[in-house]
């Protein structure tokens, strides 16, 4: 009873198509190519004053905010949790930074901008620690625990801005949202640096494995000596910190702390990026590279909608269609069905061959 061994080419093809990132990358390429065909200039990148410009660069810039949120979200989701507060945390950190700049007499100084950024991010870190406290120490379900801040957060931001939309002019601060560095927009650089740092921290230490271990089997992990509380708490802290950074990057170009609208529904975008990247909401294995692809897909959809002149009210619908397609393609049930039917076909073919041989 020998089974046919597939040729190396078939084997490689199968390995590629079964890779976690295969369908997300296909979706991204399809979107880009479709846009490129419809609007020929879409994929071109030009250089002006040493800065790169073009639709693709804009997509990268747009992907920076959801990516920053999604990096932290991925860690939280790996532990089997969720962080719904990231949108509200964006609003709070921006409010804190802009209020500080507003009150400062030297808003134009780079040093003041640095302090403003540090303050905003620090407050966000504290909020992340608060979420972690409720989840790990008080044992509140993550959905509820972070929903508290999601709801209350906008009120807090409102208190900070005293109900106004605080607007300030501070060129150094604005730079983090609309400036350029090495030819690339600042948000892209910031997101890239955050990505590299998070990946290094997660994969060069044991943190990544322990996060996954907790998400897969918390009690078994605890008995194996994993300090589940500390590790989980850390994930929420990182999520808060990155959400704060995202708020600043997102709000810097306009310099207006609009407590009601900054980061609205961004938690959902972040969750989508993580899921599109192949991470299961049930926790466990998480994929940072996939999350980047997820963020790019999400932003590309928003651009493509404009290119195809789809009415803006329909954007969410279009988003949903693409996401459903990717999720279905990744669905383990579907993969198993396909595998099973392939096996059945193969065994039937073998049976036929055997039957033909026997009479002779």
């Amino acid at each position, binding site marked *: *009873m020998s*089974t046919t061994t597939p040729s190396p080419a078939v084997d490689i093809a199968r390995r590629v198509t079964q890779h976690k990132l295969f369908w997300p990358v296909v979706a991204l390429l399809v979107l880009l190519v479709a846009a490129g065909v419809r609007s020929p200039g879409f994929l071109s990148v030009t250089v002006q004053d040493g800065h790169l410009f073009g639709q693709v660069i804009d997509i990268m810039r747009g992907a920076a905010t959801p990516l920053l949120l999604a990096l932290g979200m991925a860690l939280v989701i790996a532990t089997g949790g969720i962080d719904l507060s990231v949108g509200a945390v964006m609003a709070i950190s921006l409010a804190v930074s802009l209020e500080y700049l507003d009150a400062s007499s030297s808003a134009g100084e780079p040093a003041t901008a640095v302090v403003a950024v540090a303050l905003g991010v620090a407050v966000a870190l504290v909020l992340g620690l608060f979420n972690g406290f409720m989840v790990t120490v008080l044992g509140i379900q993550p959905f509820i625990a972070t929903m508290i801040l999601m709801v209350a957060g906008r009120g807090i931001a409102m208190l900070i801005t005293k109900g106004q939309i605080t607007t300030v002019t501070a060129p150094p601060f604005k730079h983090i949202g609309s400036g350029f560095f090495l030819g690339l927009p600042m948000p892209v650089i910031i997101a890239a640096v955050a990505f590299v740092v998070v990946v290094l921290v997660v994969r*060069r*230490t*044991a*943190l990544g*494995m*322990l996060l*996954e*271990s907790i998400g*897969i*089997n918390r*009690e*078994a*992990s*605890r*008995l*194996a*000596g*994993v*300090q589940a509380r*500390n*590790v989980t708490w850390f994930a929420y802290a990182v999520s808060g910190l990155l959400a704060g950074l995202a708020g600043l990057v997102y709000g810097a170009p306009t310099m207006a702390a609009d407590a009601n609208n900054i980061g609205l529904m961004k938690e959902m975008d972040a969750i989508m990026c993580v899921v599109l990247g192949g991470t299961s909401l049930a926790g*466990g*294995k998480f994929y940072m590279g996939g999350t980047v692809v997820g963020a790019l897909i999400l932003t590309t959809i928003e651009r493509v909608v404009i290119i195809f002149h789809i009415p803006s009210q329909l954007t969410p619908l279009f988003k949903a269609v693409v996401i459903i397609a990717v999720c279905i393609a990744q669905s383990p049930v579907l993969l198993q069905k396909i*595998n*099973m039917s392939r*096996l*059945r076909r*193969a*065994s039937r073919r*073998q*049976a036929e061959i055997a039957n033909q041989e026997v009479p002779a």
Partner: protein
Amino acid sequence: MDQREPVVEMTGITIEFPGVKALDGVDFRLYPGEVHALMGENGAGKSTLIKALTGVYAINGGRIVVDGVERSFNNTSEAQEAGISTVYQEVNLVGNLSVAENVMLGHEPRVGPFINWRAMRAKAREYLDRLHVDVHPGTELSSLSVAVQQLCAIARATVVDAKVLILDEPTSSLQKNEVDELFAVVRELKERGVAILFVSHFLDQVYEISDRMTVLRNGKLVGEYMTAELPRLELVSKMIGRAEDELGSIEERAHRVAAATHDTAPRVQALGLGKEGRIEPFDLSIYPGQIVGLVGLLGSGRTEAARLLYGADRPDHGELRLDGETVRLHTPNAALRHDVAFSSEDRKREGIIGDLTVRENIALAVQTVRGVWRRVPKKEVDEIVERYMKALNIYPNNPNMLMKNLSGGNQQKVLLARWLATAPEVLILDEPTRGIDVGAKAEVQRLVIELADRGMSVLFISSEFEEVLRVSERVRIVRDHVMGDELINGPEVTPEVLIERIARTPADGEGEAA
């Protein structure tokens, strides 16, 4: 019997997983009205063969004929419709539903689109009565003991008018009298012409109940035999593929003699350690190189005592000394840092990390001792993994396989590897051989004795008294949450003595619960 048509005929079944051939051209026949035991070591392919028959796995080669018709089931419900019902090793029920709902799940009596609750409870009662399970159908399932849950699972399997009933390790969590009840039911079903496929690691039970057996080894068929014609030792040697005399020497390993004196301080010393509602305050000492056995019924408090020693639960009385120094182990992590390791009896819930690899599962505890930020270097992990996979004979020998794809016995070995890799001075083993086969059992026992000879202190908890007596120097008996009498092991201490001690009614108690 052979004149009759087999109800199930599997020929040339081959199943491949990435990197392993789980089954290789296996033939299997099952006749109506027989109890057929499927025998083999862990990883021999027993569960895989069952899963091939019930449609959980697709087969890569071979054919399955049920009732004269070639079939290929896509899922278990299709197999069930064809009359093949399965009771799995791990209880597969819905804990927060009632007993009646679980038993009748998918077969609820209906009035139009609505469930007739009264009829459902009555029906469930009927099926439970046939198994002599005395439990109210409205009880929430999770509030019952594992044994009763297992009986409910069997009741559920009998609800469908099954032609074939598969019992995969149905007795591993049952007490002796419950096993007898189960076997009475099995015999009754057999009389009615049901074909029963029985998998168990307990050779006594296999010989008691089965008519015929099929032996597998490493995914290949060894042969099919009439139970009455195959002596036990011969069966075991067919299962593990080793000569009989070699086996005898393992079995003959004598009682471990009590060491004369201990001039050192005890490695572990519990003084009045206890936790309300779990285990009454107890004293316990284990010296370097000593193995202490802990016996008692399920739920007697033996596991609870072990958990206090490991910091898995926090005691509310007493103190714990390690090498004479008082320590407070707040968490398992603290215990591991004090070189105490604990292997839980609940492999699935408290042991394995299913979606991580074997390699990661082995390295996990070593890593947590070192802390989150200091990753154990790859080379060191490679060494640990290679050493223990070899020493414990973990099969398949592929560290990158996902833990959940290993057989139960091999998962247990991986967990042992995890704890041994931390080089503990105190090793607490709670049911380390549950669900693993004879060969591996002897290996584990030998390993434990070897470790103790090298100075490790071991607390050995097991439901198999023979095994406890084979390895331990002293035995402590736990009964009704009280740790009692210490026995010094010797030739006069037999399993019967232990049973008698456990069953002895405390003066003021109302006796043992069944």
